[in-house]
Structures are given as C-alpha cells and as structure tokens.
C-alpha cells in the first residue's frame, strides 16, 4: 500500500507510548505524531539527578520517530472527536484514527504554597532544572526535619515517593547525618505503599530505617515562611528539607471526555475514548485505574496496534513498576486488574535490571527490544510469580 492508500493515524503527544506505537503501526498506516516539544527525556533518571547528582538523559524526538512517520512540532489545542479533527493554532488536521498520548504533568497551583516550595526545592517530577535544584538541597542538607512524599493521590510512577525516601535515607546515612535527621514520609493513602502486598515489604523497610510514616495525610497547604506542611486531616509537619511529588493533571484537550483533573475518560480494556472506536488514549493521559508509567504505555501500545488492525485485543491493567530501595536493591511492582501485586523481595539483580533500563531506553522506544521484552513480560506474569512465591 502506498501512503495515499493507508488510513491516517494522528498521535497527539510523542511520548514513550506514542513513539513506540508509531513503530508498531508504521507499515500499515500513514502516521503523524504531533508534540509541542522536540526533546525526549528519560524521566526515571530524574530520581537520580535529585538524589545522587546524575546527569540528565535526553534525545531529540526526531531520532526516535520512525522514518516515514511525520513529526509536527506544534501544540494541539483540542481534539474534535465528532468530526475527526485535531485543532492546532491556525490549522486543523483530519484523521481516520486518533491516539491521545499527552501525558501528565505537575500542577503547582492546586495546593496553596506549593509553587513557592517548588521554587525553592524543585522536585523530581518535572524537569532537569527542578531535579538539579533538589539535588543542591540534598547536598547542602546538614540535618533536621525531612518531609518526603505525596501531595495528592494522582501522580506518575507509584513507587517514586517511596524511592525518594529510601534514597534520601541512604544519602544521609552515608554522610553520617542520620542521628541529626528525622525523615517523615507522607501519603494520602492508608499505607506507605498503595498496593497491600508490596506495602508489607515497604513498611518493614521504612521501620528498619527509622522513616516515620504518616498515612491519610492529604496536603492542604504549605506555609513556606514557617516551613510547615498542613494536612486536611489537621496534622502539621515542620520541614527543613522537602521532596514532594506534586498533584498531576492531564492536558484536558479532549472536550467532553476529560475528568476534573484533565485526564481522558478511557475504556480500561479497549482503551478507546467514549463510544468512539476510532479514538484511543494511552499512557499517563488516561484515567484508567493502573499506574502512570512508561511500562503501561508500552503494553497499551500493543493493544492499540491490534485494535487498529481490527483485532479485539484487551488491556489487562498489567503493571511492572521498577522500585528502588536504596543500597543497590530494587524490586518490581507486578500486578494487573485481576491479579494482586506479587510480594517480590528487593534484590541486587533487579536493581541492576532497573539501572540497565537506562541504557536500553531508546532501543525500547524504537521497538528494538521486543525480542527480550515479550518473553520477559510472559515469564513475569503475576499469576506465574504468585505461584512461585507460595
């Protein structure tokens, strides 16, 4: 088929999911990706920029997108599902199929005082400069109250707040500041890690490392003058150091199908938007009840590819979130809609795998690692791992 004969797919947002999807469908469809950014960042590395002074990992999106697919470096203002159009500044583009991959980002306006806190401390959920700002605070920390955790229940990378607490504890331990420091982990959830099975390991580790856990702590406001974080439940915590995961929002460009936080109301199995069988959403942009992570987008891209080809594939909510525990140990949070999370003890082997992902990141997005990932995801199916654990 020539490009003129192929159906046209527009992918709004050239994120991890959108780019790998473009590779999966490039032979069968005329693909256009639209993104307001030209650079692609390996976001998991922000954790290491912030807690060990690592350098950012980035690449131009054009180097990841397949030859033959078009890339438009512009911002999409909204999508018109009824008329199958994508609206940019001064132009409209028609599509046969649409895939929304606009991601999620921090919203510092939601909690009073958060913008001021962010201006001073940065964080590891936005950009390189913010992560470097946080690293400078880590380096200059000389003891006191450290508050680390979650400000709002929707955010990307579920293990990341706990990872931050573990890496910070490792840092202060190595720099002999532990005696002078109180680490407080805050979360709006009933437990230190949302998934019960993994929480057993997380809570035990936090207790062993003297990280105090504050559950049901919904951040209401941040008083940056007196350095107090206030919760809706009436608790107040003083901080000398703060590493807070911000509330996250979606882009809100799909009118009529965005929830209060701007995420797209998406079918959790078929990944389509509303009743439209020609419009899909993937990655962080959806409102589906699974982790916001690149692994999710990766697995969703297979389902969307199949569905675009007329195959009734369904997403099963599979998660596989890498989770560092500090001291060169890590685990993965592996579950699905039907399977509870596997209780997998952290190991050095899994830590090496997590670190190794950094070096494979671009090949994964170019769909060059399927020879490894396909059998890997099968071998680590939560049903199989749960049986082994028994």
């Amino acid at each position: 088929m020539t490009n003129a004969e192929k159906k046209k797919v527009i992918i709004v947002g050239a994120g991890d999911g959108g780019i790998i999807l473009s590779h999966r469908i490039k032979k069968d469809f005329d693909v256009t990706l639209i993104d307001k950014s030209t650079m692609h960042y390996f976001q998991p590395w922000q954790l290491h920029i912030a807690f060990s002074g690592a350098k950012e990992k980035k690449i131009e999106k054009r180097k990841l997108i397949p030859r033959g697919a078009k890339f438009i470096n512009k911002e999409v203002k909204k999508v018109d599902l009824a008329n199958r159009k994508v609206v940019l500044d001064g132009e409209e583009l028609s599509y046969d199929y649409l895939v929304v991959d606009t991601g999620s980002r921090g919203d510092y306006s939601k909690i009073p005082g958060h913008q001021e806190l962010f201006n001073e401390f940065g964080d590891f959920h936005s950009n390189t400069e913010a992560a470097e700002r946080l690293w400078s605070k880590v380096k200059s920390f000389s003891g006191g109250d450290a508050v680390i955790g979650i400000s709002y229940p929707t955010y990307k990378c579920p293990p990341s707040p706990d990872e931050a607490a573990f890496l910070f504890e490792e840092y202060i331990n190595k720099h002999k500041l532990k005696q002078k420091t109180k680490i407080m982990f805050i979360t709006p959830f009933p437990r230190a890690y949302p998934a019960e099975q993994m929480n057993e390991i997380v809570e035990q580790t936090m207790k062993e490392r003297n990280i105090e856990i504050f559950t049901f702590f919904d951040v209401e406001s941040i008083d940056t003058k007196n350095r107090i974080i206030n919760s809706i439940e009436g608790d107040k915590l003083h901080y000398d150091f703060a590493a807070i995961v911000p509330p996250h929002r979606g882009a809100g460009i799909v009118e009529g199908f965005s929830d209060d936080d701007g995420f797209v109301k998406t079918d959790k199995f078929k990944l389509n938007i509303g009743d439209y069988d020609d419009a899909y959403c993937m990655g962080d942009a959806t409102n589906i009840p699974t982790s916001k992570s690149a692994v999710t987008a990766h697995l969703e891209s297979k389902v969307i590819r199949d569905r675009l080809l007329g195959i009734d594939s369904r997403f099963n909510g599979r998660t596989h979130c890498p989770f560092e525990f500090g001291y060169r140990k890590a685990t993965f949070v592996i579950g699905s809609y039907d399977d509870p999370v596997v209780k997998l003890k952290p190991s050095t082997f899994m830590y090496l795998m997590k670190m190794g992902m950094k070096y494979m990141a671009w090949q994964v997005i170019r769909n060059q690692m399927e020879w490894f990932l396909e059998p890997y995801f099968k071998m680590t199916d939560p049903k199989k791992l749960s049986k082994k654990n028994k």
Partner: protein
Amino acid sequence: MADENKKIIDARGSSCPGPIVELSKAYREAKVGDILEVWSTDPGIKADAQAWASKTKNQILEIKEENGVIKVTIKVLNR
C-alpha cells in the same frame, strides 16, 4: 437526609491504587455536613474506609453490599 449534599463516588472497577483515591479527592472538596457515598467492587474498601473515617474523624453511616458492589456512606463531620 438532604440528598443535595450527597456525592456519589463511583469507583467500581478501580483497584490500583483503589477507591480510597477517589474518596480522598472527594473529601478535599467536601464541606461539613456533606454525605459521600463510595461505590466499589474492591473488598478492601471496607477496611480502608473505616481506617480513613477513624483517622479523619468522619462518620461511617452505613456499609452495604448489593450485587457485588459495596456501598459505603460517610457523613463529613470534620473538614
């Protein structure tokens, strides 16, 4: 009971991280006197909602199960 202060939180099918997320978000917007009713298919909601109510000093009015859906009705006393 005045229904105009009642908010239904439909968290059916949500299990990661679970219906407690939706309850937490709804509580953020709630006022004293509001009724929050959480609908969930996750059996963990019973224990989580009770722990939440105890911590936040709000009141569970009723927990019932209908056709596989657990409905937890909460009165906001503290906000």
